[in-house]
């Protein structure tokens, strides 16, 4: 199988930082995978996703998405990826519909196609009756769902999700996960970061455990559990690989 994302010896050292956030990082992610990037705070997950989305430039190394090298085809790559950032990247004073119409238009969607896509997505995530309410009046769970829709309106080939279920209730979390599974079934490859290890165990087809800018282990959740002594679940694997020490860093 051909990888949809090919990362080759990617490194990132921020200005004034003592250590590399990501060091000689190589990884292949295949089409149709739901790939979980798991790791403690400061492991390099967000740095990796930020580089793959074009928000941060690598110090060295390269990567390609769908056979397009980012160095040469950044604008082409941006057309086929979707990004759901950890923060609510929405205009609070605009309504849900206005936000989605605007962000959809940025991917070249327009007219009735865009309007119908917005209605369909809002309906699937139970938000259609709130379409014309301002985002600032929404609960955290509702904002998370709108945040997700804003990243997938253009049916991206690859979707990057940075902790998409953080701070939401169980109902919202389930709605988000169900929607993501539907997207994946329709052909979207998902790259996902989370600290909810049980959620990742159920949701992801493949996982890489990352720490200190390097991959510690990679495989399916079941294989990772099976290959770690005394591990009953992904959390045991995670602790065995990354240790119990606190990761407070400024």
């Amino acid at each position, binding site marked *: 199988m051909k990888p949809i994302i090919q990362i080759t010896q990617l490194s990132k050292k921020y200005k004034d930082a003592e250590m590399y956030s990501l060091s000689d990082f190589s990884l292949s992610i295949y089409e149709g995978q739901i790939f979980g990037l798991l790791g403690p705070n400061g492991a390099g997950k967000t740095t990796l996703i930020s580089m793959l989305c074009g928000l941060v430039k690598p110090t060295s190394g390269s990567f390609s998405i769908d056979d397009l090298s980012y160095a040469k085809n950044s604008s082409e790559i941006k057309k086929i990826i979707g990004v759901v950032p950890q923060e609510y990247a929405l205009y609070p004073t605009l309504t849900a519909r206005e936000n989605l119409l*605007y962000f959809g238009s940025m991917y070249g969607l327009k007219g009735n196609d865009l309007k119908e896509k917005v209605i369909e997505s809002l309906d699937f995530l139970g938000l259609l009756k709130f379409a014309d309410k301002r985002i600032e009046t929404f609960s955290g769970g509702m904002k998370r769902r709108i945040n997700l829709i804003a990243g997938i309106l253009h049916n991206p080939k690859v979707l990057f999700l940075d902790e998409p279920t953080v701070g939401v209730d169980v109902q919202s979390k389930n709605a988000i996960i169900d929607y993501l599974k539907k997207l994946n079934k329709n052909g979207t490859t998902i790259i996902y970061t989370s600290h909810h290890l049980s959620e990742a165990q159920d949701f992801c087809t493949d996982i890489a455990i990352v720490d200190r800018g390097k991959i510690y282990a990679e495989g399916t959740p079941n294989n990772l559990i099976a290959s770690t002594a005394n591990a009953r679940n992904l959390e045991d694997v995670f602790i065995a690989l990354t240790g119990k020490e606190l990761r407070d860093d400024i």
Partner: protein
Amino acid sequence: MSVYKEFLLLKRDIGGVVILFIMPLVLIITVTLIQDSTFKTVSDAKIPILLVDNDNGNVSKTVFDNLQKSNIFTVVTKINDEQLTESSAKEAVFKGKYQLAIIIPEKLSADLQSKIDQNVEKITASLGMTDTLAKAEKTTVVNQKEVKLYFDPAVQMSFKNAVMSSIDKMISQIETKSIYATFQAQLGEETTSFEQKSFITFKEIVPKVNNEEIIPNSVQHNVPAWTLFAIFFIVIPLSINIVKEKSQGTFVRLRTNPVPNVIVIAGKTITYLIICMIQFYMMILVAIFLFPHIGLPSLNVEGNLFLMSIVALFSGFGAIGFGILLGTIAKTQEQSAPFGATSVIILAAIGGIWVPVFAMPKMMQLIAQSSPMNWGLNAFYDVLLRHGSIVDILPEISLLFLFFIITTTIALQYDKKKRAV
């Protein structure tokens, strides 16, 4: 769609809209009303000044009459029904109750006359017209006289200079008249009267349009200046808009979608240019239609509106470029808002909005050349007061557009570099 989104964001921020459209109108009305009196020959509000007359002669009477006749001052000689003395006048002025006290010394009229008599006698004697020996025994030494002026310490230097200059002129006229009168008496030619009117007079030649003289008034000066000031205040909401996008996270979406940053910036530029032009036309409408109802002259834009619109448009470009740069560099609203407000005031100050550039120190005159507000103001004055053409304003509007290009390019490059950290 970007333009539509920017308009929606503004529409949902009523406070911001009020600041954008109402405050410039309040500003222009207030400032023009205040500054109008300096352009008027007849002012409604006269400044009360204290006069202590220790002379009680012709000179003090003339000073009193001239001051009373002036359109600027009313003369006060008593406070609480008590005749003023030097010390009471000094105390009242230094406490800020009055802005000025004039103390006329004792025997000013008599001593001035004695001095003139002596000088005239010397001249006539040298011409052999009088008996020098007979007069010599009467000659006494007349010391120089001093008219004291006390100013409120809070009074500005320009006001002090204007008052001192007009009092100096008044006293010179009195001296001249006395000299002529003494000569007349000395020559014994009662019937011959000297022409005492000033031989040299001044006439201001003002520009003419269709053979009609166009006399600038406060409105013609103030409306362009304060319109420009208001246009530049767009720096604040625009920079806050950009900083908010960064703090809300929408910036991440804008950077990860296929639309180039330059298109996003173009959306903001178009939106805020439209706002600038609406502001401009609102201020022009107020100056034309509202001003005559509040005692101000109406703004005369006859034949100049198109060129004025061009100047406003390019000034808008300058302001927007600055706003984009500030919003890109600032990390928080706490940085962008105060810096934006202060820098606009500084640009206005060095640009000649308050004090004309020609009245500034040489160093500041040089610095003024670098203020976009100075370019905009000069272009407005070229159109409105000097009746220039598009060719005349071309250098200024080119500079304003260049300023927009440079600031926007720096902002785009800064943003790009920041992502490479």
